[in-house]
């Protein structure tokens, strides 16, 4: 993301030096640690499969081999599959789902909010009420029905998460558009007779983008949290595909005898959510001039 993007309400882009100062303030040691974790998590998800010599789907040892035996860094699961390999591939699935769902939510939500905020009247009524309906629909029901109708799996999951998170963006964009509409530079463009679509794309969108971009990493964190919950209920990623939520659900069953089966993926989920949450907070403090 570029700091040249004009930020926030009617505030013009802050000078670079103030921006860096704010970044320095936003980045306390704790957040720096979290950002390093986020980076490590991403690197592990992208490169990890190259570093771990096991396949996440093929049994490669005795069930519940302790960590360190037979080259299994974190031991094996109930099928004798390498836990480290499943963790890394699971992380990859998790992030992929979270990223796709977030992108879907951000695009649809922003478009809805943009249109509703700009055109007002019945467009506003339709778009904003659609988001209200989604919000009023209990999360679990939505996921249960979607899975019952379309079958569980990665695609269903992405769509479910995308739809569930879209209202956040719709409301965010809607609020921003309402204030941008009143800005003088927008009035000027309207006076010049720019085509509406072009106006929305070239002028309005860039000016409402900052808070939306900030929201992205928070949504990623929320998506990871929700995905693991849905997988725990059997509504998420399908076995044998590795996913952190599934690993936790399996680990839950062995909590009495093999607590590591729960604790390892749970720690990975917590760290991931923590890291992306901190990334979002940092971005917000940096980019949002009101703080």
């Amino acid at each position, binding site marked *: 993301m570029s700091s040249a993007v004009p930020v926030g309400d009617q505030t013009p882009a802050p000078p670079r030096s103030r921006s860096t100062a704010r970044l320095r303030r936003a980045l*306390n040691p*704790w957040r720096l640690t*979290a950002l390093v974790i986020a980076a490590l998590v991403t690197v592990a998800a992208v490169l990890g499969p190259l570093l771990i010599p096991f396949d996440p789907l093929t049994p490669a040892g005795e069930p519940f081999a302790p960590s360190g035996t037979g080259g299994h860094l974190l031991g094996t699961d109930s099928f004798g599959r390498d836990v480290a390999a499943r963790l890394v591939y699971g992380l990859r699935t998790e992030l992929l789902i979270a990223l796709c769902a977030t992108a879907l939510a951000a695009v649809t939500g922003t478009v809805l909010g943009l249109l509703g905020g700009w055109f007002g009247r019945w467009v506003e009524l339709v778009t904003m*009420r659609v988001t*209200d*309906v989604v*919000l*009023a*629909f*209990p*999360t*679990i*029901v939505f996921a*249960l*029905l979607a899975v*019952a*109708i379309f079958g569980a799996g990665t695609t269903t999951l992405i769509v479910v998460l995308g739809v569930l998170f879209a209202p956040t963006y719709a409301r965010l964009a809607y609020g921003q558009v309402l204030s941008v509409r009143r800005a003088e530079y927008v009035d000027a463009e309207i006076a010049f007779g720019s085509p509406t679509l072009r106006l929305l794309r070239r002028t309005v969108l860039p000016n409402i983008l900052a808070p939306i971009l900030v929201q992205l990493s928070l949504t990623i*964190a929320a998506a990871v*949290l929700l995905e*693991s*919950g849905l997988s*725990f*209920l059997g509504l998420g990623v399908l076995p044998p595909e590795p996913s952190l939520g599934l690993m*936790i659900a399996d680990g*839950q069953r062995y*909590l*009495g005898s093999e*607590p590591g089966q*729960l604790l390892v993926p*749970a720690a990975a*989920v*917590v*760290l991931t*959510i*923590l890291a992306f*949450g*901190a990334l979002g*907070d940092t971005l917000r403090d940096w980019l949002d001039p*009101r*703080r």
Partner: protein
Amino acid sequence: MLRYALRRCAVGVGLAWVVLTLIFLSLHAVPGDPAEVILSGEGAGAVTQEAVAQVRAELGLDRPLGVQYLQYLGGVLTGDLGTSFTDRAPVTEHLADRLPATASIVLVAAVIGISAGIVIGSWAGRGGRVADAVVGIGTGLGVSVPVYVLGSLLVLVFALTLRALPAGGYRAFADDPAGHLERLILPSLAVAVAFACVVARMTRSAVVETARQDWVRTGRAVGMTRAGVFRVHVLRNALAPVVTVSGLEIGTLLGSTVLVERIFNWPGTGSLLVDAVAQRDYPVVQGIVLAVAVAFIALNIVVDLVYGVLDPRVVHR
């Protein structure tokens, strides 16, 4: 104000109708026949087509979809949510059984979450760098731990290892108040932690922001104590966004306690919902969704109105 409230209520009723229609239609689009589920146990009895047809007729599923929809809608308008497919009891009876269980978790969690959140958040907001950092890390962690992981760990520690509290289960408050409360502690705690963290974060930033306002400095300048200023001006003004967040959070919780209910074997609406979907018990699913949606919509309206009272700058159009 009154006109605004009435208009919001009218829109709310419309929303509830849309939600109800969507759930009705999508349930019928779900594969899996309620009659076949009812007739298929785990053993080896044979299910004949005649028996399936007979049960479908008993359940009224043989009528055209439009007729079923209108009949259902008519029932809802007269306060009749239909009868459960699986046990033929009125859905309102099921709701009366299960809503209090879910409500007690949500209520206790909300009380703990809001009070702990406000205390922690205001401490972080004015307690200096160390307090801020500690709370920052703590709340960051708190919102990141999935509720079912936290719940499992609570069971492991407090029920199985320390044997201080029951691992789960439910007693109706009316029959056994002590037993009810004893079993309520762990599930409420599991839900309250994330709740408290969200409230704490919101309180902290609201407090920090409010403390920067001119009138707070004025308060100090006219000789009020730091604590006095905080209580009278800062906290009261910071409360509005906290109320909003709490209200929305409660609304969301009402429909998403299923994970906690499962871990603690708590017979709330969440577990009933999952079972009802699995059993294709359409009237029960519809009833719960309607109840949760209405509660959510009503909470939103209340939150908006309270926000208006707390923050007079808000003008309702």
